[in-house]
């Protein structure tokens, strides 16, 4: 069940569609001599969604920040798109991060920029013509159903709307990997469902690889047991005993990866901690 210790064999060759998008190989990190994550190994394959579960403060957000190189591991290797980011200079990481979309815990929108400039930030940096930025920002906002907010500032939006703008910002350049850091944290149940539906839509419509950090089990199981229906433009429950084949779980406990497997394996787990966590 726990493939954490030996499940990852990094292949730093030229990336192809079958290569894993993310590989963690025996990664450890600590702060002020206190270990936070120890010997973490796992992979994210193309088009796969890994849901990262664990109690608050266990290091889930740290793991995401390691994935896009915002933090560097004390030991071990991290490969993203076949390149070892744990050995890259900060200057070189900026290019890799261009292909990764990140949705931060509180949205982390630039409060002095309008929604249009927030969503089109990457395009602004690439000196894309203004008309194209507006068109692509509008398209991304349409995806999250917030078309009318182009000229608003983040302070004029509700918490749920800010989170949706953050998703629009993450997807505007069609990244190959999206990292969601507690996208529903602190939101009411209805807004949370809307956000989860958007995450699912990105998985099932664009088939983007992703890591979703959450400590809300209802969100995790909703992602595993529903799929997005393009015709009705809403999510539908999968038939009983069926789960999304591209969605699997990781679980952290006391800095270690205690579970790496499918939804069924998670539910059937006899591990006392996992059993208690999901019951």
């Amino acid at each position, binding site marked *: 069940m726990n493939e954490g210790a030996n499940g990852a064999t990094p292949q730093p060759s030229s990336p192809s569609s079958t290569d894993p998008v993310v590989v963690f190989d025996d990664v450890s990190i600590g702060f002020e001599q206190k270990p936070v994550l120890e010997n973490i190994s796992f992979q994210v394959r193309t088009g796969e969604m890994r849901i990262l579960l664990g109690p608050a403060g266990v290091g889930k957000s740290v793991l995401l920040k390691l994935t896009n190189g915002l933090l560097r591991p004390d030991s071990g290797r991290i490969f993203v798109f076949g390149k070892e980011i744990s050995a890259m200079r900060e200057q070189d990481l900026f290019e890799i991060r261009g292909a990764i979309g990140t949705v931060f815990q509180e949205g982390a*929108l630039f409060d002095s920029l309008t929604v249009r400039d927030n969503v089109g930030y990457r395009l602004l940096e690439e000196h894309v013509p203004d008309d194209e930025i507006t068109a692509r920002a509008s398209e991304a906002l349409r995806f999250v159903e917030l078309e009318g907010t182009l000229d608003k500032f983040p302070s004029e939006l509700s918490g749920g709307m800010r989170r949706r703008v953050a998703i629009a910002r993450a997807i505007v350049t069609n990244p190959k990997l999206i990292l969601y850091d507690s996208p529903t944290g602190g939101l009411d149940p209805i807004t949370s469902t809307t956000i989860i539906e958007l995450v699912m839509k990105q998985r099932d419509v664009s088939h983007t690889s992703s890591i979703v950090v959450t400590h809300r089990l209802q969100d995790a199981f909703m992602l595993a047991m529903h799929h997005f229906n393009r015709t009705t433009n809403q999510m539908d429950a999968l038939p009983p005993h069926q789960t999304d084949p591209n969605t699997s779980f990781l679980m952290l406990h006391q800095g270690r990866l205690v579970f790496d497997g499918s939804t069924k394996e998670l539910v059937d787990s006899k591990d006392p901690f996992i059993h208690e966590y999901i019951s």
Partner: protein
Amino acid sequence: MALDTIDAAAKRGVLAVQEYALLSGRAVSNIFRKPLYRSDIFMQADIIGVGSLPIVILTGFFLGGVLALQSAATLTQFGAAAFTGQLVSFSMIKEIGPVVTALMVSGRNASGMASELGSMIVTEQIDAMRALGTDPLKKLVMPRIVATVVMLFFLVILSDAVGILGGGFVSVSMLGQDGSQYFHTSYQSLQFPDILQGLVKPVFFGFIIATIGCFYGMRTRGGTQGVGRSTTQAVVWSSILIIITDFMISRFLIGIFGR
């Protein structure tokens, strides 16, 4: 136990100096790397330079005035009231103009930089910027350094001029001195080393203000309370460093030019 505390404090101090040197070095090296972020440099120049004009003009004028007022009283005792202009221009150009202008700009802008960047840190906007593929040292720190160094240079020249003008106004209107004599002695006694000293200092002071402001902003921890702490530390340390650097530059240039 006490040794452990001293040891930890010393390590923290050395680490802070190392981080400051790295941040400053990387930000300066970014001037020579593309993209240059010209519009950010101009925006910061407007905020730092044009925004500081009123306080620099006001403080410069009244400092020049009070210098004339105080020095004339003493110089009269020795029958040397005619040298009021010389004393005001010397003081303004070599010391008071650069130092007071730098302290004013530091109070206004080092605090602004620390609080702005600090707020961005605690709301994860800096992380978001890095995650979006932008180097915050290039986008946020480098433009502030360039803008502060360039604008402080011109602000100090303006402050010197306004200060001498303020001294002249007080000398003529309140002390009954001859205006022509005041301005004549003001510029006639100035020599190249005096002007050089007055123009070299703002370059260093501008660098200190921007790097210290950005450094404390970028290492903010602990929410809104941390932002307040960073802001205070930025103003305190930039002011202290300005005064220490002023002494060192003065000593160095006096050593070379003999005045």
